[in-house]
């Protein structure tokens, strides 16, 4: 103990060079500056390696692949541009998949955000039980999307699923419902799964936004005799716009890239009526074994997403300013 205490008062043996030799001030400082620079680079190096190898390189590679004849089994067979892009657009499934993905995105976004807003308003104020409700609404979000899709695949099953008999006993339907049998029912069943799975997630984002609104604003409005509807329309909604915009961005992006739920629940059926764009990429690459066309599709998706992100970020910034 004594030795240690003594050592602390004496300059340590491995003191930095500038302290031991004490040269003129500027070079020492400069050296310390460069050494901090070098240390910063060293700490950032793993991030730089990761980002370069697993993000920048693949991004360049997908560009090259989209311009090349690139079968899965043989690899690169040289440039064939723009054949992959024309092939992708000429595929009979391309436009139906684009149309379906857009339709799905619109329906999911509207239903999901409306419900998330309702949930957030329901659990916003403290009442007995509101914490319990918050947790319950959020629980499905802790599940994985693939797990939730597998769960609903059983739930919707015509043989063992409980939903048909529940609906029948409530007198809502007469015959067993085929939840995944027609293109419309398959779409709506998937929307229900996604709303169930993600409503709590978006509720949480909106809840954080609601809590950022100062309490006095609501109180002042109430003092002035504003009704609940008025408060919601002229205070809550406008002040919640940044959070709503963030939800919109996440929800639209996520829905445009939908894959797991359709791959597991509908397998793209019936009759390829629920094939999304990302499923098309997967089919092109691993069923038709054509990585070049899959890469071209990937680039198209990337371009659309980037455009959308730029537009929505602009909206988000405007919402932040106001």
């Amino acid at each position, binding site marked *: 103990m004594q030795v240690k205490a003594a050592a602390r008062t004496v300059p340590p043996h491995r003191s930095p060079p500038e302290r031991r030799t004490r040269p003129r001030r500027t070079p020492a400082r400069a050296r310390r500056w460069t050494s*901090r620079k070098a240390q910063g680079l060293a700490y950032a190096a793993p991030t730089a390696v990761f980002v370069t190898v*697993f993000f920048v390189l693949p991004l360049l590679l997908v560009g090259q692949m989209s311009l090349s004849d690139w079968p899965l089994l043989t690899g690169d067979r040289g440039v064939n541009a723009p054949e992959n892009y024309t092939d992708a657009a000429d595929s009979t499934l391309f436009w139906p998949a684009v149309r379906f993905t857009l339709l799905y995105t619109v329906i999911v976004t509207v239903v999901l955000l409306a419900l998330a807003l309702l949930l957030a308003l*329901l659990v916003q104020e403290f009442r007995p039980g509101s914490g319990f409700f918050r*947790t319950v609404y959020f629980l499905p979000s802790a*599940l994985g999307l693939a797990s939730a899709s597998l769960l609903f695949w059983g739930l919707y099953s015509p043989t063992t699923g409980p939903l048909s008999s529940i609906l029948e006993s409530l007198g809502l339907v007469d015959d067993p419902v085929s939840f995944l049998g027609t293109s419309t029912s398959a779409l709506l069943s998937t929307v229900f799964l996604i709303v*169930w799975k993600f409503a709590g997630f978006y509720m949480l984002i909106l809840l954080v936004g609601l809590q950022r609104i100062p309490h006095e604003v609501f109180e002042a409005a109430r003092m002035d005799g504003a009704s609940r509807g008025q408060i919601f329309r002229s205070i809550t909604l406008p002040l919640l716009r940044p959070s709503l915009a963030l939800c919109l961005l996440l929800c639209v992006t996520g829905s445009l890239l939908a894959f797991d739920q359709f791959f597991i629940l509908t397998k793209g059926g019936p009759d390829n009526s629920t094939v999304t764009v990302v499923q098309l990429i997967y089919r092109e690459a691993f069923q038709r074994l054509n990585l070049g066309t899959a890469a071209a599709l990937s680039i198209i998706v990337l371009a659309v997403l980037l455009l959308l992100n730029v537009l929505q970020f602009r909206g988000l910034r405007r919402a932040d300013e106001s």
Partner: protein
Amino acid sequence: MSLMRGGTTVLSRALGRTPYYVVAGGLAVIFLFPLVWNAWASVSGQPGTAQESGHGLGNYRTLLDYDAGLWRYLLNSTVVSALTVALTLGVSLLGGYAFARFDFPGKNLLFLLTLAILMVPYATLLIPLYVLLGRLHLQNSLVGLSLVLAMFQLPFATFMMRISFEAVPRELEESALVDGCGTAGALRRVLLPAVRPGLITVGLFAFLAAWNDFIAPLILISDSEKAPLPLAVANLRQQSMGAVDYGATEAGVVVLAVPCLLLFLLLQRHYIRGFMSGALKG
């Protein structure tokens, strides 16, 4: 009088609240029903499953024996999740420290590039990553899969760790440096405890993402022996020709869901910090 008045206000308040509890409670039932039903169905008898009648663990026994066996798939999932969490924590801890406390050439470019991962769709990167991992001899490997999953976690993790480090007072670190610690010593002894909450949040998000991911292993893992659990359960469902084993699938969903639900309930506070931080705005 006053008692009665008190009584009526309590009563009217309770009545005024009833619609709230009807709506909130009804929604709670809808949200809980699929989870409860699935857990119940996994131990209930169904024709065409290992649990023909009565209640029991027959479906779980099917899962234990399926192909390479449940333990194998659980091990695969655990290895992938642990590696992803470790890689994400390690890289984002050092990276967050660098971005928060150091100036170095290319700092802003690197930070922007890291965040840009969020702008690029998952599916766009998986096709070239499939080829790239092949060149690195990491195709069909759990290590390769973990590296990819960790990369997708980096935008959130790096942002989260950067703001965690920025929230620590500079004096704390400077006093450690004056005491003769190097920056590595200051990081280990002084800063690490201070940013631990951020690390827990990052680790939790990385675990949930890695444990649950489906499309990355679907594309990057071709050997069914190496499949993580979500992929194995989805395969189990597809491979049973004609007759579909719903019971085993339900049991698989329970095994998949329980760790996530438990972790979330235990670490709720840390999960919600991820939302509060604004890191999701990326």
